[in-house]
Structure formats: structure tokens, C-alpha cells
């Protein structure tokens, strides 16, 4: 009898079972529920009738500030107001309102998830929390039921192991490596699977750079993306987690349906070309493409390290006059750190528009929308048709590449700028 993966062990524990088998339907206790737009779930409550409260006021987190740093229209102002009322009415304690920032960063930064936790969310990028050894999985519509029961069902996924070794060359970041892995696995390569990331490359990254890998598992179709919690994670969680926890680790003899071994020593900068996040190409294939907007931010580029990378390129340089350069910090913590490190000044001098914290123009819900025929490059996770306009072209790349392209006015290799 072989052992079990971290995913199987977290699910077994949460379902109150000794062990689980792949393909089995299990009902797990949920430790955290993330919601960015609960409006229509509150309307489900009205249809159900007689809803007294959510199952646990501590465990439901609403981040109204995820999509909007301020309401940009009366319609949105009305929606956020109704979310405030709904949170109050149903006893939801944790509401991150306008200006609070991007929900996935907040869930980790504010200790709503921890190693071994089961977290589900209304946002498809809820896989993010795997970076700290939590099982994060998107549920969306079904979060209405989770709010009432505190439980969620899973089909126990087989696990694909991705081992990443080597040191990247200068100018290639974790965003490039994560993009590379996404290209190898493909848009449905992990459908109904867990993806577990390991290797010396991963262990050298901060939790925020690790998050790109767990978060982008959604773009592979995965149920969750996860990593074994190590010292870096445990140290970060000290005094942060909202409840005491016991980390869960996979067994050494766990079995995997597939093992991918990737060496990143010679990896060149990468880019995703339209219309799929998984359409990964060497950056050279897209070089010279004229751009109208560049955007550093989003849930795969709104951390302090991403801001430092962008600033490294932009220091003493100016964005091209025909390019709108947007810098979008993930949370107020990142925003303040940018200020204290002098990065905000570098961005201002470069002619960038620095917005308050939120998730950015990834899906055109707040500001920074682009028009038909326009081209944008950004660090965010998605470039699909209909997300940021139907007739737009979106390229996804690292903060280095995005910043260098903003200066050049066209997609550009960042290495000469470093």
C-alpha cells in the first residue's frame, strides 16, 4: 500500500476519514471561504428564505475591494452597498471593503488560511493558497451552499508532480517559470487533477512568488495547486494564522499519476500570446509587437518583489509616450512598502499611473479598460477573449518584460535594461 499525497491527506482529514481514494466523492469541512462578489449569492439566500446567518462568521471572508478600489459607477456603488448590508445581515465578520486590495493576497497576508487548511472560493484563482500548503479550490456558484453548511464536496484528484530545479538567468523571474510550466501542462492538462510543485527552485522562492504556481494551476484546469509547507512558510505563518494549526505533509512514498521534471537553468524570458494563458512562447516570438498599455499587478504580479523588478527596469527611464503604464499594488502593505523603498517615486518619474491596491484591469471591471484593436501586456494571469474586450490582444509576461516593453513601446526583451 503506497502512501498519500498532501492533497489526499488534507482531504481525508477534512472529511474525517482515515484515507481517501482517487475519484471518490468526499464532503470536507471548510476552514475558509473567500468571496469577491457575493451579490448573487445573497440573492440565492433570499430565494432559499429563512437564512439566519452563515455557518461561521470567522471563516467567511468577503473582499469587495478585489475588483474595485472605489466604485466607478452608481451601479457598482449600489452593489458594494448591498454587499455591506448582506455581510451585516448574515453575520459575516471579515469584509475587506474598497481600497483593501486583492483578495488572494489578503487571505494569506491576514492569516485566513494556513498549512493544511481547506479553503474554497468564489474566484477561480482560489487555488492560490497552495503556496502555503493549504488546499485552495474554486467553487464559485456553490459557495452559497458552503456559506450555509461549512462543507464542500470534492472528487479526490490524482496528483501530477512538477519538480523544478536550477537557477534562472538574470532577467528571468518566477512569473516566467510559472508561465513556462503552464505552457507545458496546457489548458486542460490538469483537469480534475491536483498539481504539486517541488524542487530546489521552488524552495528558494518567497511564498508570494510560489503563489504564481499554485494560482496558475487553475489555468491548467486543476482542482488545486499545492506545495509542502517548509520553514519559509512556517516562519511566515508565525503570529499570523487566525487559528492554531498542524501542517499536513504528503508521504514520501505517495504515488503520482505523472511526474514532470523541469530544469530552468537555460530558460529564456517567456510570454503568453492570445487567446489562451497557456499559449506560452519564448519572448523572442512576440518581440516588436507594439503595445498601448502595460500593467504590472494582478494576482500574479501585485507583490512587492514584482514592484521591485519593475522599478529595476524603470529607474531613470520613462514609459514610451504612446503607452499607458499602470502599476497596481496588490494590498496596502505592498503599497506602503513601495513608498518606503522609494519605488513609488521611480514609477511616478517614469510617467506611470500608480493606482490604489486592487486586482487591476485584468477583466475590465474598474479602471484601465482597453478598446477594440488595442494591445496590452501585463503580469496578470489571463488573456482570454471577452475578459478584457473581445477584439483586444493581451500578452502575459514578467514584471521585467512588462516594464521594459512599456519603455520601448513594443514587446521587448528586458535583459538589456538590467
Amino acid at each position, binding site marked *: 500500500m503506497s502512501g498519500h499525497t498532501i492533497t489526499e491527506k488534507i482531504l481525508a482529514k477534512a472529511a474525517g476519514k482515515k484515507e481517501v481514494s482517487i475519484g471518490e466523492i468526499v464532503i470536507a469541512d471548510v476552514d475558509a471561504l473567500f468571496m469577491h462578489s457575493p451579490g448573487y449569492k445573497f440573492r440565492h439566500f433570499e430565494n432559499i428564505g429563512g*437564512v*439566519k446567518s452563515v455557518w461561521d462568521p470567522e471563516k467567511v471572508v468577503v473582499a469587495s475591494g478585489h475588483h474595485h478600489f472605489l466604485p466607478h459607477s452608481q451601479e457598482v456603488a449600489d452593489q458594494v452597498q448591498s454587499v455591506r448590508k448582506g455581510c451585516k445581515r448574515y453575520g459575516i465578520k471579515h469584509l475587506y471593503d474598497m481600497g483593501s486590495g486583492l483578495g488572494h493576497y489578503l487571505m494569506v497576508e491576514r492569516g485566513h488560511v494556513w498549512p493544511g487548511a481547506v479553503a474554497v472560493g468564489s474566484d477561480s484563482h482560489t487555488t492560490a493558497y497552495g503556496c502555503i500548503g493549504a488546499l485552495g479550490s474554486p467553487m464559485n456558484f456553490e459557495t452559497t*451552499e458552503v456559506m450555509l453548511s461549512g462543507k464542500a464536496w470534492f472528487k479526490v484528484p490524482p496528483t501530477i508532480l512538477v519538480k523544478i530545479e536550477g537557477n534562472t538567468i538574470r532577467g528571468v523571474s518566477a512569473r516566467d517559470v510559472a508561465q513556462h510550466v503552464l505552457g507545458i501542462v496546457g489548458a486542460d492538462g490538469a483537469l480534475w487533477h491536483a498539481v504539486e510543485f517541488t524542487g530546489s527552485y521552488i524552495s528558494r522562492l518567497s511564498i508570494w512568488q510560489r503563489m504564481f504556481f499554485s494560482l496558475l494551476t487553475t489555468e491548467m484546469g486543476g482542482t488545486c495547486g499545492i506545495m509542502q509547507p517548509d520553514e519559509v512558510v512556517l516562519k511566515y505563518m508565525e503570529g499570523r494564522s487566525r487559528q492554531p494549526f498542524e501542517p499536513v505533509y504528503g508521504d514520501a512514498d505517495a504515488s503520482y499519476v505523472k511526474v514532470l521534471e523541469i530544469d530552468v537553468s537555460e530558460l529564456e524570458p517567456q510570454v503568453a500570446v492570445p487567446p489562451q494563458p497557456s499559449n506560452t512562447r519564448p519572448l523572442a516570438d512576440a518581440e516588436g509587437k507594439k503595445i498601448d498599455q502595460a500593467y504590472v499587478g494582478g494576482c500574479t504580479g501585485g507583490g512587492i518583489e514584482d514592484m521591485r523588478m519593475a522599478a529595476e527596469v524603470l529607474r531613470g527611464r520613462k514609459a514610451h509616450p504612446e503607452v499607458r503604464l499602470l502599476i497596481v499594488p496588490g494590498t496596502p502593505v505592498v503599497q506602503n512598502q513601495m513608498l518606503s523603498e522609494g519605488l513609488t517615486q521611480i514609477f511616478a518619474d517614469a510617467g506611470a499611473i500608480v493606482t490604489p491596491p486592487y486586482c487591476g484591469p485584468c*477583466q475590465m471591471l474598474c479602471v484601465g479598460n482597453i478598446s477594440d484593436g488595442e494591445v496590452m501586456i501585463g503580469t496578470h494571469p489571463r488573456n*482570454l477573449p*471577452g475578459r478584457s474586450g473581445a477584439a483586444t490582444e493581451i500578452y502575459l509576461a514578467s514584471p521585467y518584460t512588462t516594464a521594459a516593453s512599456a519603455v520601448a513601446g513594443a514587446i521587448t526583451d528586458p535583459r538589456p535594461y538590467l
Partner: protein
Amino acid sequence: MTATNGKAWTFGDHVNSESIMPSKGAVGEVGSATDHVLEFYDPEFPKKVQPGDFIVAGRNFGASSGRPSGEVIKAKGVKAIICDSAGRVFYRNTWNMGLAVLQCPGIRSKVEKGDDLEVDIEAGTIKLLKTGETLQAEETPWILLDIYHEGGMVGWIKSRRKEYKTLEQN
């Protein structure tokens, strides 16, 4: 449940949820999205789809964002979506909306736009009326069939009201 007949509308691989329900207005609001549903791939679809029709698609239908795009398809009266495979969240969500999604690897290559199908959602069978061939979809998780029997998640919760401490019992 008995089988129902309808015409097929065909789509390719990796049709994403944003192209089913484009980003406009608020996340999760059906609104005018029904006028534009799937027009990126087939401009005729939102104008000509009839209640009772089926969608037949390739791999990973409904991939990406978890916006409730199935509701827009349901609002058009589509009876079921049959695909080689579906995005995980789309698959779960859409059954929860009371609209069936059958994963039947290989279906797409056998169906052309306008073909007549006879589909038994419970049994997971799809009969291609032009050839008489019957295909068997993958087994649907029992919990989704339970939810579907109650017309979707809201009905399922109401039918099990006693199990929720968070609901008033009267």
C-alpha cells in the same frame, strides 16, 4: 427521466467562460449577456438558438473564470451541454444551476451543427439520429444528480432544509 430531442450547436475546444459571458457591468449578473452568449464563436447562436437545443463542444468547455456563465446558456433554453470535457468549475456550477453537462470524450468529432440528437440526461446517453449510433457519457457524480433532481442548488438546499442549522425551520 425520458430522453429529449433537439438540434446541436457545435463549438470547438477551450471555449472560455468569458466568451460565454463577457466582462461587462458586474460579475455574476446575467443582464444583457444573453444577447451576446457565445457570439465570439458563432454570431448566429444568440439569435437563433431554440429552447430544447443542445450544445456540443470539444475539450475543456467553459474553462477559466468561475463567472456563472451557465446561467446565460440556460436562459436561452438550452437543454444540455455535451462535450469531450468541461472546465471543472463550469461543470460543477452548471449542474448546480439545473443545467446538465455531459462529458462524453469523442462526441465532438461525430456531430455537426444542426444534427438531431436524442439525449437521456439521467442515463448519460446521446443518440445521433443521423447514424443511429448511441454514445455513453462519463458517469456524473451522484451529488450533482441529486442537486439536478431538485432543479439546482437552491431547490436542493430547500429540499434538505432540516440539515441546516443556519436556516429557520418552519
